[in-house]
């Protein structure tokens, strides 16, 4: 839990004041039985009417004082708890953003979301309750015991026996339930992922008529969750009844002991009442404590889950140097293996891309094209070998510099909820409308954006699902272009575009004023055949490197790809190919 204490630190003041005031309130409560004892012994037995009035007034005053202490304490507790949660949420979210792709892949999106939301909420509740009760309840319990000893030592021994027994029960139950709560949270995770999966896969699920099956599997998961919850419930439900029984047995013994003491004249009837009151106060506090324990155990379990995220170090160390002016990209015997994978995805890749060049990358499905371009902006680090930009190892460069100089259009065209302008600002926050239109123009997206009544203010739904695949791809390309990158990576990002649009897009990129070094990953020969250099990948190995003409001569895989595509697509259209 160490890591999490940082977030409570800014609220040191609140964390001291809240429990302190709660203890003050408790102290006030502890005086009440004494007043009642005096009321009986002095007021009633002494037939002292003014004294009774006085005690009445004192009781009233104590009530008022308790209220004041308590209200202020609640305010500070609430402030500390919500502040803690907000800080924790902020940093956890931030931390998730800094996780490398491979760490994030491993943890998984669903659990990240649960931890950011429901787990942090649980810790907030835990802290709030904890600040209010964690100190106050033991304070009352021990305070009541001390007061009891002050009233009469021999009768008060039962307090000293009862309290440890109760403590053992409360903590024992906590000890049993904490791991069980963790199981509940794990079950909840699986319910979350089931829900999300069905929202994202709704078309496929309906097309395959799997609704019934999905429903059954969801119900199985909620069943398991229910069973796990009930199991914890059985244990935590023990706390209250057990404490109740023990306290009442202790009370009975206390009365018996008190009776013996009164009989020999060492104790008065009023004092016996006071002792009983203290026992009752302990019971009330323990009931609260038991509820608190349930909340706290949940909070501790949740806190552990959040902390685990915070402790997941990004496996990527940031560099220190700025991004070089010279944008020569060089791969030097680079190999790469995904963390969970058993075999290499890239093997011994070497090539050099000079500034302003267009590099085409082609190869079969699963040949490592995406893995290769993902290494350039350091989404993943090479397992062996090194990648340099302008002669500098990219691991020595600042990540922020790398990411702002290299624009990467990922295979999955993902837009965010907002407007088209918002999405473009995602590429370059300060982009003017003019710059945005330029980028849209180059990305061949201007035309359809212009047909939208709201133009740049046209709404985009989550993931861009109100747009067609091709529109999404063009917008994600525009988003990359708007930032005027030094290096541009297009990872099969024109796959949904028709040939005409694809050609126009390549033409526009070629004409960009800043001439970025461009990497184009594609399945289509036509998309890369005019590149300055073409890399041909097969099962992770670089099997061909050169221009279109060179490769046709030297690389049989390339020739095969070319022939299967171009020949087939140009049958009856030979003249177009030759021109």
């Amino acid at each position: 839990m160490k890591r999490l204490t940082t977030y409570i630190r800014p609220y040191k003041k609140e964390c001291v004041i809240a429990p302190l005031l709660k203890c003050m309130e408790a102290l006030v409560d502890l005086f009440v039985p004494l007043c009642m004892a005096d009321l009986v012994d002095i007021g009633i037995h002494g037939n002292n009417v003014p004294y009774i009035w006085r005690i009445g007034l004192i009781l009233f005053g104590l009530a008022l004082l308790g209220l004041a202490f308590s209200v202020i304490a609640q305010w500070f507790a609430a402030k500390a708890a919500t502040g803690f949660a907000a800080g924790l949420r902020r940093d956890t979210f931030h931390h998730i953003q800094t996780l490398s792709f491979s760490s994030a892949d491993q943890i998984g999106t669903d659990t990240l979301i649960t931890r950011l939301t429901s787990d942090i909420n649980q810790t907030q509740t835990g802290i709030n309750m904890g600040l209010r009760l964690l100190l106050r309840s033991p304070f009352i319990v021990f305070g009541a015991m001390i007061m009891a000893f002050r009233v009469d030592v021999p009768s008060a021994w039962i307090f000293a026996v009862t309290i440890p027994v109760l403590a053992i029960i409360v903590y024992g139950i906590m000890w049993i339930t904490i791991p069980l709560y963790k199981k509940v949270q794990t079950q909840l995770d699986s319910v979350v992922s089931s829900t999300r999966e069905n929202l994202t896969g709704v078309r496929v699920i309906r097309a395959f008529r799997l609704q019934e099956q999905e429903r059954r599997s969801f119900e199985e998961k909620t069943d398991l969750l229910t069973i796990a919850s009930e199991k914890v419930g059985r244990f935590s439900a023990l706390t209250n009844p057990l404490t109740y029984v023990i306290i009442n047995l202790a009370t009975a013994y206390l009365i018996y002991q008190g009776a013996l003491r009164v009989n020999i004249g060492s104790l008065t009837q009023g004092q016996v009442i006071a002792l009983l009151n203290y026992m009752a106060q302990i019971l009330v506090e323990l009931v609260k404590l038991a509820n608190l324990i349930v909340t706290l155990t949940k909070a501790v379990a949740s806190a552990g889950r959040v902390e685990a995220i915070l402790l997941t170090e990004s496996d990527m160390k940031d560099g220190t140097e700025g991004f070089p002016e010279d944008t020569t990209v060089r791969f030097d015997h680079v190999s790469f293996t995904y963390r969970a994978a058993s075999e290499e995805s890239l093997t011994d890749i070497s090539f050099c891309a000079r500034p302003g060049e267009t590099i085409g990358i082609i190869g079969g499905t699963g040949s490592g094209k995406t893995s290769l371009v993902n290494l350039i902006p350091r989404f993943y680090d090479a397992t062996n070998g090194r990648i340099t930009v302008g002669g500098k190892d990219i691991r020595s460069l600042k990540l922020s510099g790398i990411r702002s100089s290299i624009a990467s259009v990922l295979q999955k065209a993902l837009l965010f909820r907002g407007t088209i302008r918002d999405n473009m600002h995602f590429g370059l926050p300060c982009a003017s409308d003019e710059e945005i239109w330029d980028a849209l123009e180059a990305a061949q997206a201007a035309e359809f954006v212009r047909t939208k009544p709201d133009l740049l203010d046209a709404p985009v739904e989550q993931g861009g699902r109100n747009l067609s695949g091709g529109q999404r791809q063009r917008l994600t390309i525009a988003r990359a272009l708007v930032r005027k990158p030094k290096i541009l990576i297009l990872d099969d990002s024109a796959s949904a575009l028709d040939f005409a649009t694809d050609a126009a897009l390549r033409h526009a990129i070629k004409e960009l004023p800043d001439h970025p070094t461009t990497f184009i990953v594609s399945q289509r020969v036509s998309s890369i055949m005019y590149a300055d250099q073409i890399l041909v990948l097969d099962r992770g190995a670089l099997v061909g490197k050169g221009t279109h003409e060179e490769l046709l001569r030297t690389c049989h895989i390339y020739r095969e790809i070319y022939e299967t595509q171009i020949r087939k697509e140009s049958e009856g259209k030979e003249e177009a190919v030759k021109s």
Partner: protein
Amino acid sequence: MNKPGNEKQIMKKVLKYVHRHLPLVIISILFAAFVVALTLYLPILQGRAIDRIIGKGQVDLTGLVRILLIMGGTALVTGFLQWLQNIINNRVTFRVVKSLRDDAFRKIETLPLSYLDAHPSGDIVSRVIADADQFSDGLLMGFTQLFSGVLMILGTLVFMFSISWQVAVLVVVLTPVSLFVAKYIAEHTYQHFRKQSEIRGKQTALIDEMVGGQKVVQAYGQEVIVQARFDEINEDLQKSSLKAVFFSSLTNPVTRFVNSLVYAASGTLGAFMVLRGHISVGQLSAVLSYANQYSKPFNEISSVVTELQNAIACAGRLLELIELSSEKADPAPAKEIKDFTGKVDIDHVDFSYVPERPLIRDFNLHVHPGQKVAIVGPTGCGKTTLINLLMRFYDVRSGDIAIEDTSIYDITRNNLRRGFGMVLQDTWIKEASARENIAMGRPDATEEEIIAAAKAAHADSFIRRLPHGYDTILHDGSDLSQGQRQLLCIARVMLALPPMLILDEATSSIDTRTEMQIQQSFDALTKDRTSFVVAHRLSTIRTADVILVMRDGNIVETGTHQSLLEKGGFYANLYNSQFARS
């Protein structure tokens, strides 16, 4: 979104869910009544015990021991009943929440796509998970404490009247103060909780989107800006949570204050009553412990009320989801198409996603069994829309689509979808083994059939290279490349062998060599099967029986490859541009 009504209406609906567990609820209530009665009986026993210890030499030990033994027994029974009651309440609560979640999920399965396409999934997830959780917490507390609280108050009053009507009257007079305060606070709290819940929903939506799209965020180095957006909502949430938490926590001290007032007042009055000889000291002590117990349930009830309000606010959001209108029900009685030959007729169809912006107008198409229909056109021209209509993901605004001369609106959706196999550009992988992912369309397929389908789709070799082969658990984020995912989806269709096919850019991420290799299997598959193919690869298009050229939602040209080229129109342009030098 429709509102499920105010607190009362929500409560009614929640009670309907509770109603299913009526026997348990009744048992719980009975137990609660016993527990309350026994709890209240204890102070009387205590008072009697105290009256037997008046002073030095005035202690009736034998009478005392008898009373104390009864006290111990009563406590034991009470504790046991309490435990049973807790377990029952747990059970009822968790089952109600389960039913709510299941219903919400069932609803998700039938919601119209127009709704799902337009609402952030994070918000829906937040309802099914976080709101349901908060609701269960509130309901549990409510169950355990609300009922026994009320019983406790009533019981206490009865016992108090039996001891001293004067003190009882005093307590009754002070009661409304407590109720008034509790009500006042509760009203305020509800507002704040509702707001907190709303902001939380917004935040979850953002989290869902940004954590889901984290790779893009990082690729663009936009962590700072995303963080700023998050921080803004986070601050709002902090402020609204502070209010909600503080107001709800006020209930306790304030009612405790009223409680202390009652205690002080009954103590003072009680003392005078003892002086006048109306009651004994033991009875005074009993009255005082009642005074304590009397206001304790008020505390509990008021804290329960705030919890319940939070719970109701959450239940409200959950019910909102459950009560959304599902897609139009299947016709009853429905016609049934048993054998699909692949005849599809689209007549005068109008369609638009947004009423004010018509997309498809007066669309006609007649497909004969076994024909291959290619849909081409510039990006975003409505190709996918056609698929949405064929699969009934969306319904036409006017006009009709008929399959085998039967309107698709006269048969069930499942019947319709049984006729189609679909591979979409956006691949979706279920969190399940590779085997289960392929067998999705035919769960009863044998191992050989699955492997044959995977081989036909050229997915077999990469699946075998996965850590556990066909048993590898795949999920949406797993390391499969986009192309591999498409191969997997194609394998699904190869196994299911549906009568008709819809291929929406099904091979867009697959390299041409592999595609060439799959082509044979595809040719075998599409032979004699009606198929709708959205593609930009001419190899696919050229062999089509009908090519629909779409532009801005309209069919601008129809014909075969040859006839369209000769026509020299939009299609010819599109085709010629393909090899244009960049």
